[in-house]
């Protein structure tokens, strides 16, 4: 393998290549990529997943978010057929992961939590082997380029950094050119730069039409990447919505606090679709609402000749949503119970 290995592209570069586009791109969309209905899974007396239902549209990045032990991984493992559910139905592009195991393994790429590889195999040898498992696999060189591992092809697995191992693991999830990728805690243990690189990579993969199911306990990741998020707590879905809508639900939305240059009639603001409530705190006005709240408020004030001073914006995030919905707190890295 004549790769010089001197240059390492650390940041994954977005190329327009077809390395990781899904297979059979011409296939028409017949409903959701992932459909889970009333999923239940118990381990002895422990109910790990209880009546979980959601569906993921093709090309969507869907997050399963929750604290450790909430049932996220069990949900994902049932979805990919690693575990058989006690009850409920799971369909991946119409296929049953238990009955249609072979087809499902062909179209679903999986990156499992804490799954290592033999220390003394080279990156290229690992990829070449996994590539041979699929009918229509991706090109190894292109995949390595996209993942920023181009110079690492002849390196032993054991010599890779944590971030490189993680990216190789993602490469293995993508090497079969899956239509759905299920990624479990893909940035755990990565430094912030490596984490951002992986996020960018995942967006690139989605842009190529791959549906992505992301299992994470990392709030920032879900907010940054996911189109929609299912908050799972104690085996149940506590909430399911876009990250910003979840945040809105949690705190009654964003609020903007300002000092108007002249007294205003509340109706100027309450008539706006973005505004849900207007309150006065002394001289200040506090407007609560959703969407492009600040723009809407400032624009309406300008229309009646009032300017806003001392503007303070308070927006809640997914973190607030989680605390509100589950009564639990989390630390910077994730959630603690």
């Amino acid at each position: 393998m004549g790769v010089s290995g001197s240059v390492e592209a650390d940041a994954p570069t977005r190329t327009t290549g077809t390395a990781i586009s899904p297979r059979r791109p011409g296939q028409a969309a017949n409903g959701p990529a992932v459909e889970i209905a009333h999923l239940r899974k118990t381990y002895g007396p422990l109910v790990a997943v209880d009546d979980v239902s959601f569906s993921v549209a093709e090309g969507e990045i869907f997050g399963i978010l929750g604290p450790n032990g909430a049932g996220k991984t069990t949900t994902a493992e049932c979805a990919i057929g690693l575990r058989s559910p006690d009850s409920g139905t799971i369909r991946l592009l119409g296929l049953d992961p238990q009955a249609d195991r072979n087809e499902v393994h062909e179209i679903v790429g999986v990156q499992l939590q804490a799954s290592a590889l033999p220390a003394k195999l080279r990156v290229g040898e690992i990829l070449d082997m996994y590539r041979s498992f699929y009918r229509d696999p991706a090109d190894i060189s292109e995949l390595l380029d996209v993942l920023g591992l181009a110079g690492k092809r002849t390196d032993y697995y054991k010599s890779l950094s944590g971030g490189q191992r993680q990216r190789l693991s993602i490469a293995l999830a993508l090497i079969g050119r899956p239509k759905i990728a299920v990624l479990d805690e893909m940035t755990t243990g990565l430094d912030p730069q490596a984490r951002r690189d992986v996020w960018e990579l995942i967006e690139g993969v989605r842009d190529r039409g791959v549906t992505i199911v992301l299992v994470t306990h990392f709030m920032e990741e879900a907010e940054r990447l996911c189109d929609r998020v299912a908050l799972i707590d104690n085996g149940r879905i506590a909430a399911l919505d876009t990250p910003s809508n979840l945040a809105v639900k949690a705190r009654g939305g964003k609020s903007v606090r300002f000092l108007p240059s002249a007294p205003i009639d509340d109706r100027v603001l309450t008539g706006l679709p973005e505004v849900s409530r207007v309150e006065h705190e002394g001289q200040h006005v506090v407007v609560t609402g959703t969407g492009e709240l600040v723009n809407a408020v400032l624009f309406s004030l300008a229309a009646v000749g009032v300017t806003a001073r001392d503007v303070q914006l308070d927006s809640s995030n997914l973190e607030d949503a989680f605390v509100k919905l589950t009564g639990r707190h989390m630390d910077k890295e994730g959630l603690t119970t």
Partner: protein
Amino acid sequence: MSSLSLSLSLPLPGTARRAAFGKIVVNEARLAWRRPVGLLGGVVPILLLVIFGELPAFQHAAPSLGGLSPFDVYVPILVVFGLAMLATFGLPIPLVTYRELGVLRRLSTTPVPPSWLLAAQAVVQLCVALAGTVVLVVVAVTVFGAAPPKNPGEFALSVLLSIAGLLPIGLMIAAIARTANAASVIGRLAFFPMMFFAGLWLPRELMPAVLLDISNYTPLGASVEAMQDSMLGGTLPVAPLLVLAAYAVVFGFLAKRFFRWE
């Protein structure tokens, strides 16, 4: 996907399937080569053979050994030594390591079932075992003048049944052990008593009747008995071959029952 069963409904077309299995075997062979402890079972018996071949005291026929020289007696014991190392260390340790690392779990999310890795591992171990046995017997005969097996067919049968009896014991070790360290401890606990009854320290010819009786029913004792009988010629060593077949069946069943992919 929890019990030990080879998936028969395979996803890839025939040629692609063979190619995929070939790639796994090649990578397993690379790993065995790069982690040479995996090949010790093939090498150590040959080193011992050379040492025993150089010891003058080992070359004289002894009445207590039924007219054989100690060197002659040790040839089948060393063959068995190699097979036992591969079964108790060579097979289970990589398997348990793969389970510990999550390699088997990852594999079970691909179109290729994790049983292929086990099969590939067995192929590599089998090749090392057979190559080690052939080299050992050839060196013993050509370099040190040991008598070649009088009945090569029966000798080959004895070797194959020994492998068939020993590999499921290795799988059973992989089934019991949760970590690679535990596997190597259990492997040693199995290896040394079994090698004792094979006659490594006290050849079977010198064992008291009680020990010999026990030895006849241990896998390595039966294995040495079958190989020795077929080397000396004479009738088919039915009893030890049956013992080995029984180990293959019983441990095969137990391993299938208790082996876990994760």
